[in-house]
């Protein structure tokens, strides 16, 4: 087993995080077997009913099973996180590598782009763009992916600047390696550790941002069971049926906690300088 996995295994919170995340992944995969009811079938006679044996977490205003909607919603939640993090990381790593490796004008332009992106609150910019493109699951993923690249770019650029001057990169250059070869085979593997930490910690914040957009009506459209949207449905029935808003929030919080635990653990393992005291 690689050393960092052994070290990670000694971190109790990271283990709890891994257990939470694996549970959510399994829930998403086996949703049809775990959900007690359909996520879209309406039982109008059982509207707003409190938790019972038929509906363990109660029903919403259309008589749909809240638990089943949360279980199926885990698929959308994971998809949000995976797609958003992948787009941001791919864009950020590429631009960060270019900026750090080539320096000069390339670096200046990319770093000004980072400054420009960081001037906008992610949620505000994403809301504005999604409203122009039109609400929907894919638009939310795309937009949050695009606006989240700057952290990766800044981090990778910094790492590249320090790796660029090391002996082995110099040696590769002396041996006549092409720029592409040097970036992909010599620089990238050495900057990937911190990127994994940032990506693990980006996942929960991407999920919260996507859920926030869904909460405001910009995300997955009905009847898709997105956690943020279920929560928004429950807002109008807070007095009569608080369970509609309560439980999807718990699901979001647990997922976020799980990824935060893993991210903190990974950071301690992969970068001992940042280790929490």
């Amino acid at each position, binding site marked *: 087993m690689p050393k960092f996995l052994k070290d990670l295994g000694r971190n109790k919170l990271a283990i709890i995080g891994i257990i939470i995340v694996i549970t959510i992944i399994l829930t998403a995969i086996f949703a049809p077997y775990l959900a007690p009811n359909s996520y879209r079938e309406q039982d109008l006679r059982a509207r707003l009913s409190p938790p019972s044996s038929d509906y363990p977490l109660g029903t919403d205003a259309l008589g749909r099973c809240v638990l089943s909607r949360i279980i199926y919603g885990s698929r959308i939640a994971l998809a949000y996180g995976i797609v958003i993090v992948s787009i941001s990381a791919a864009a950020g790593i590429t631009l960060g590598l270019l900026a750090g490796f080539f320096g000069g004008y390339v670096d200046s332009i990319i770093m000004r782009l980072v400054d420009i992106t960081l001037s*906008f609150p992610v949620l505000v910019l994403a809301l504005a763009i999604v409203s122009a493109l039109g609400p929907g699951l894919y638009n939310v993923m795309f937009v949050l992916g695009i606006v989240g690249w700057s952290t990766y770019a800044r981090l990778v650029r910094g790492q590249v600047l320090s790796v660029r001057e090391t002996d082995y990169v110099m040696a590769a250059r002396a041996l006549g390696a092409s720029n592409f070869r040097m970036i992909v085979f010599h620089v990238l593997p050495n900057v990937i550790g911190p990127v994994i930490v940032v990506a693990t910690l980006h996942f929960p914040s991407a999920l919260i941002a996507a859920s926030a957009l869904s909460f405001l009506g910009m995300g997955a459209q009905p009847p898709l069971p997105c956690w943020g949207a279920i929560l928004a449905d429950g807002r109008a029935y807070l007095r009569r049926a608080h369970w509609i808003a309560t439980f999807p929030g718990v699901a979001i919080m647990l997922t976020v906690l799980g990824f935060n635990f893993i991210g903190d653990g990974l950071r301690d393992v992969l970068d001992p300088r940042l280790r929490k005291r």
Partner: protein
Amino acid sequence: MLTFIIRRFFTMIPILIGVTLITFSIMHLSEGDPARIMLGLMASEEAIAHIRQVHGLDLPLHIQYFRWLGRIITGDFGRSIQSRRPVIEMIRDRLPATLELTITAMVLALLVGITAGIISAVRQYSWLDYSSMTFALFGVSMPPFWLGLMMMLIFGVRLGWLPISGRGDLNQLIMPAIVLSTAQMAIIARLVRSSMLEVIRQDYILTARSKGLAERIVIYKHALKNAMIPVVTMVALQLPFLFGGAVITETIFSWPGMGRMLVGSLFERDFPVIQGTVLIIAIIVMFANLLADIVYAIVDPRIRFD
């Protein structure tokens, strides 16, 4: 110091141009004719022609941008499609509410976060340390819209202690400010703790202690000052999140600020309001970052000579 501020100010110009370019482009991202999108499918041809003419939508994009920029510089943000009111007036009406909420939340986050961080560091591994760090972990993990609804349910609906919406009374500020500050509070507490723990191990703290200074003076006068340096940067980095969070918090608690105005204009695709709000928020964030850099240069003189 003045040279530093002037130099830093000039670096803002290209960023500001980029920010206006992005804000301007928002309207043109949508498929189809922006005039028709703004007015809806039922709009008459005359109304659409009028909007096209007012916004110069027939002109080439770069000309449209420079015309728009020219108007923005003179403070003309156009008129809302829905209410027909000048956008700048609407922003002027709403900005104080947003600033009241965000500044209160920031002050609250700093007060609680710094106190919790210091206590955690000074009493490392005590129950106080464990409980404040557990609180911090949950604080960063709770979605703000859920926390808002849960506080509303408990303190507003069930216990009836606090009003659940509106602005005007100090009571009405309590819940929104707590909801908006929770995540920041948690982040600051974690940062102050780790930063203090690092500083406490430095030689000059040992020197201060061996001089016989009281522990209180060592912690508050010597350690805290240096431990605060990363906090200044963090506060600046967190500002955009605070404004993003304000959009959610204002919507939940019907707080009459810019965030709620933005959400209201999204579904109507009231682009002049969307663009105006986004631009003003970005400019506020930029100036706040400038301010943070200046404060940073004051607390850490090494920065100025870089």
